[in-house]
């Protein structure tokens, strides 16, 4: 288990302020946050690469706060992989073996196993400068895992890869994690990565952890408007609550349960809002008439902005449906969403 208590780091412009985290042994923890939130600084603090001002870090009960990086049993893999350019792939992977009291045979077996699993057997005599992004990634993973750290820190491991490769490596990471007792701690800002890999997640902003829990929880029940915005909740509206209804700028919206405060926010994911030309006969309790105020091309989808009184709701519509419905600026439409799609906080 990794326990971080009240961690403070001051590093030039970056500050970590009172970071508290508990990560289960052998789990796959994902840390998300916008650029400049201090994610990499947190990783480097755990690895012992930046000085810690205040606070404590323990790994499996061992206080490592002031240990040098080489005595922590914490591996790190950077976004740019940081392979040693002057060493061959094989020498890169075996770099750390001489510092651990490994059984030579076991280390050899582990090397062969990883090389096989990662499919890099044909690269062993090459230099990093001649490898592709995906290959570099695999070599860096092998190098970090062969020394069997207690924790491996992965700094946006997939962000530099092509979409096709990402899927492969994501599955590979999942498998590597499943087959080892190593705790994985990964930084990312891709939600699909987090959803497929993580057993536990946290959102970080401005040097502090703003929410922890399962990814699904964070995704569906953001604790603050920042988290809601960050996880892609587009319709975040201030509201006054009265029983199971919320008043948003004159509109009355049915909410799933009573809220403990009289004021707060509601949010609705754009994919949960249905657009139609006429009121729908369905179980959707919330339905309002509005006018299309904007259409934004999002690749496969259109993001439709519908003005209802003074509010604007954002919804996603496939390009095909947009043509079928003849959606255009100024058109009168109906928006509908289920009570259960309304998130209250």
């Amino acid at each position, binding site marked *: 288990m990794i326990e971080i208590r009240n961690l403070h780091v001051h590093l030039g412009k970056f500050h970590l302020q009172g970071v508290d985290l508990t990560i289960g042994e052998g789990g796959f923890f994902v840390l998300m946050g916008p650029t400049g939130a201090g994610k990499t600084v947190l990783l480097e603090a755990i690895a012992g690469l930046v000085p810690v001002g205040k606070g404590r870090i323990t790994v499996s009960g061992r206080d490592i706060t002031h240990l040098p990086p080489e005595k922590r049993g914490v591996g*790190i893999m950077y976004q740019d992989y940081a392979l040693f350019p002057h060493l061959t792939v094989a020498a890169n992977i075996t770099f750390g073996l001489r510092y651990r009291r490994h059984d030579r045979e076991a280390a050899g077996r582990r090397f062969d196993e990883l090389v096989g699993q990662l499919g890099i057997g044909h690269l062993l005599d090459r230099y990093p400068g001649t490898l592709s992004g995906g290959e570099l990634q695999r070599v860096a993973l092998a190098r970090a895992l062969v020394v069997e750290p207690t924790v491996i820190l992965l700094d946006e491991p997939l962000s530099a890869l092509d979409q096709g490769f990402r899927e492969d490596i994501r599955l590979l990471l999942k498998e590597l994690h499943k087959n080892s007792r190593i705790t994985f701690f990964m930084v990312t800002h891709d939600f699909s990565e987090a959803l497929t890999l993580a057993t536990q997640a946290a959102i970080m902003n401005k040097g502090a952890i703003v929410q922890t829990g399962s990814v699904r929880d964070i995704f569906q029940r953001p604790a603050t408007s920042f988290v809601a915005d960050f996880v892609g909740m587009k319709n975040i509206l201030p509201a006054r609550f009265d029983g199971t209804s919320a008043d948003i700028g004159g509109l009355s919206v049915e909410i799933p349960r009573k809220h403990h405060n009289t004021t707060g926010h509601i949010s609705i994911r754009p994919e949960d809002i249905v657009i139609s030309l006429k009121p729908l006969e369905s179980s959707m309790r919330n339905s309002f008439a509005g006018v299309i105020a904007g259409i934004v091309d999002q690749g496969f989808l259109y993001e439709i902005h519908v003005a209802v009184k003074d509010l604007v709701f954002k919804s996603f519509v496939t390009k095909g449906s947009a043509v079928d419905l003849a959606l255009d600026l100024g058109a009168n439409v109906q928006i509908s969403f289920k009570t259960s799609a309304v998130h209250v906080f």
Partner: protein
Amino acid sequence: MTRKEPFLWVSVSCAIVALTFILLPLVEMLTAPSLAMLGETLKDRAVLRSIWLSIYTAAAAAGISFVIGTPLAYLLARCQFRGKRLVEGIIDLPIVIPHPVVGIAILSVAGRNHWLGQFMSELGIRVMGSVTGIITVLTFVGMPFYVNALKSGIEAISPRLENVSRSLGAPMGSTFLRVTFPLARRSILIGLIMCCARAISEFGAVVVVAYHPMIAPVLIFERFEGYGLKYSQPVAVWLVLVCLTLFLILRVLTLPGKKAA
């Protein structure tokens, strides 16, 4: 930029003037002595001795700079500390101090009136008029070039490589030897060459500390003073040729193209 740009032509003209300015005197000097004279000079034992002395004292200065300057360059490249600018300024001092002043400064420490000078003379180390003195002076003037070259070389290496090495279990020393040092090899070499080049051309400071034994620049000066331009030219030609050849060999031997890295 098109070919008709006047600025381009001004630039090219200036470049030609600059190149002529550098090359003309050198070519003139190199071609002035006849082959017979060059051959004759090579038989002069004093000339051979002085060129050899120049080479090995400069090499010794580079060696000392390597041993002392490498950790210093690492420290300056990687660590942030209060007074770092001051330290960098101090290292650059030998570059800006007039050369005879360097000689006089060294003598004021190495002389009998200073405790260090006394201590050294008790140990039997003589600086004034000795090879030790020459090496001391050459290290003083050459080391800043080595430290600065290596410092920028190390700065260009991503600290992440060192971080990864540490996280893989390598202590700081081992990380330096296995990661930083091999990657900085090129800068080390360039630093050594620059330090050597600077040392081999030193005259003003050496002549104050040690007129004898004579290094090549002092010998050339003596020949010029005593016998005139014609007699100093052949020695100068040999010194230049030897230096160029040495540096060329060093570069060819140690910089074998770009590796796969």
